[in-house]
């Protein structure tokens, strides 16, 4: 089991020795005991770092943001940046490195193993406890359980009851790629791979029923773009849904600006929403490592994991490919193999 104090000590030492220029981790926020992402640069700030089951965010996103910021300022990264990474976060880093977004030596991975559990799902937990997030004052890992503190005192909950679906289905809770790792690698099977997807496919049955389901889901999308903004893989400088990225030069005419191609309109209508979500899902095929952040943040609860899981399953079944496993192998969409399980390509 991880002693969160060890994490603070590691982070402090890394900053004090000057080995890294910053540490991306979690700290306590102002909403109950829920953790929030933080970037620290001074050794004395390391004491504020936490590690508990509310550390749900995929922090790889902040390395992407850091890289973009530096590029914008025409600065070189210099020393590496350290990141607290769970198994899923580390897999995201693998994909980013496969795609040459960073070099391995530019990132110091402070791995944290989820061991036999994972992070919790806030909604499941609140439902289980029958209280609200503000009344939850403490929470920690303890073996196969979560121990939580509310107004009525401390209680022990069997973790799988309140774990996020993605954690239940996780096959790599240990960050294999790391510079240092806290916690052990533990074998476990809590739910079958793609369990939620299988349940959904069984429940909806036919293709028309499935289509009706998705139309209803996309109908209510408000296009806040939180799913895209929270995704470490959605790092494109040019996103088809934005108007920001139309290249403007001194000689760009007003007509060119007005007539820029808009693949997807800003209106949050069903057709435009479907265009947006399908494009995003396809752009994540063979890249999504199922951190489930898109689904977690959606304010109108669109089950986006199902879309990404479907493509992940396809990439596994058709190409024998699992994203985020190793930086030694080429990414799915940039590789060709003689032993490709498909015959259409030969």
């Amino acid at each position: 089991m991880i002693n969160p104090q060890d994490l603070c000590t590691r982070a402090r030492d890394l900053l004090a020795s000057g080995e890294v220029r910053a540490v991306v981790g979690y700290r306590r926020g102002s909403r109950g005991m829920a953790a929030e992402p933080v970037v620290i640069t001074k050794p004395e700030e390391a004491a504020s770092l936490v590690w508990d089951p509310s550390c749900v965010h995929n922090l790889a996103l902040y390395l992407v943001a850091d890289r973009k910021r530096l590029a914008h300022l025409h600065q070189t990264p210099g020393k590496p940046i350290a990141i607290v990474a769970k198994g899923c976060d580390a897999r995201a880093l693998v994909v980013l490195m496969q795609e040459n977004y960073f070099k391995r030596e530019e990132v110091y991975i402070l791995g944290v193993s989820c061991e036999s559990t994972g992070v919790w799902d806030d909604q499941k937990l609140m439902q289980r406890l029958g209280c609200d997030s503000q009344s939850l004052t403490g929470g920690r890992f303890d073996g196969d359980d979560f121990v939580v503190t509310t107004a009525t005192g401390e209680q022990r909950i069997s973790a799988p009851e309140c774990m996020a679906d993605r954690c239940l289905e996780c096959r790599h809770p240990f960050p294999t790629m790391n510079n240092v790792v806290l916690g052990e690698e533990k074998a476990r099977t809590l739910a079958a791979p793609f369990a939620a997807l299988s349940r959904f496919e069984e429940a909806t049955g036919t293709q028309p029923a499935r289509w009706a389901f998705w139309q209803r889901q996309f109908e209510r999308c408000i296009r806040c773009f939180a799913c895209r903004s929270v995704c470490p893989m959605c790092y494109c400088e040019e996103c088809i849904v934005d108007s920001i990225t139309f290249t403007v030069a001194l000689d760009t005419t007003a007509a060119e600006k007005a007539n820029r191609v808009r693949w997807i309109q800003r209106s949050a209508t069903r057709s435009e929403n479907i265009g947006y979500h399908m494009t995003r899902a396809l752009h994540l095929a063979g890249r999504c490592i199922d951190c489930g952040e898109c689904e977690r943040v959606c304010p109108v609860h669109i089950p986006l994991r199902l879309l990404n899981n479907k493509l992940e399953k396809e990439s596994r079944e058709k190409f024998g490919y699992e994203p985020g496993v190793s930086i030694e192998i080429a990414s799915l969409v940039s590789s060709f193999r003689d032993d490709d399980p498909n015959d259409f390509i030969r």
Partner: protein
Amino acid sequence: MERMLAKEQIGDWIRTLRGWEVFGPVLQDGVWSYQPADTVQLDHPNTAQPPKGFAFPQREVFFTFEQIKGEPPRLTPVAPKGGQQVVFGVRPCDARGLPRMDRVFTETFDDVYYRTRRGSLAYVGLACNQPPSPHCFCKSVGGSPVSTEGLDVLMTDLGDRYLVAAVTATGEKLMQAAGDLLTEPTGVDRSEAGRLRLAAITHPQRAVNDVASVPPRLKKGFDSSLWEDLARPCISCGICTFLCPTCHCFDINDETNGSTPLKGSRVRTWDSCQFPDFTMHSSGHNPRETLGSRLRQRVCHKFQYFHENFGMFQCVGCGRCVAGCPVGIDIIAVVNQVAASAGEG
């Protein structure tokens, strides 16, 4: 006008509202939203989105256009339908959003689309006997769990019955339609309602500290380094603004849906000050390029600029932006921290 309504008769009341399109909170796919309803069961928490869209929909078509080669373009104005709509179960904080939107769209500028929709809209509110969210802070920003501002009718849940109180003339009309369904409250009803209201307004809430001092302090703190610090985890999504009962920024685009002949429509859609392309100039320059400058825009608009312009906070304390932020940016904590630091020295 105060009357009593048995809970099981709310559908009967709704059926008397001829000529009104009735909406109520509905839970579908795990999401509470206002949907057309024959009857309503008012046991909802905060709906995912406030009812703002009834007066200010996310998509508003201004006109359609068509151009046949060699001919002048033809424009066809599109007006909102303007049919009467009544929304049941509106929370007092969300209702307070409406008069704030009015300031923007009917006072300083007469927006015909907003005015038309707003003019035929009525809110039947539900007092919050219990706070529907742990992040409620309506009392900090001049509201209350029993506020009537922006409502036409306020209902108070007394267990098996509602105390129904008219706030506006429209509200009285809605109640008159109910006829005998509504009965005179007894002394017991009134004292029970009084007791619940007192309990509601004394229920502890999170708070913005010394809110009267906030506008000048934020003004003083404009250049504070806290903005960038506090915004550092921000992912630039639009959750906080799109779930807000008072955010009203918009974008206007021409959406074409055919090229021979060229045709399409001019459309207003919600925009968000948290998007990186918000206020981006045609030249490529963006005056709000950083996360901190965009967080400052959102917070100061609600707690300083709007207050300077209209003498009221633009935030109604519903807590949706706090609960919904993917990374824990908390407007209460932001205001408190920036205001406190500006108060020092």
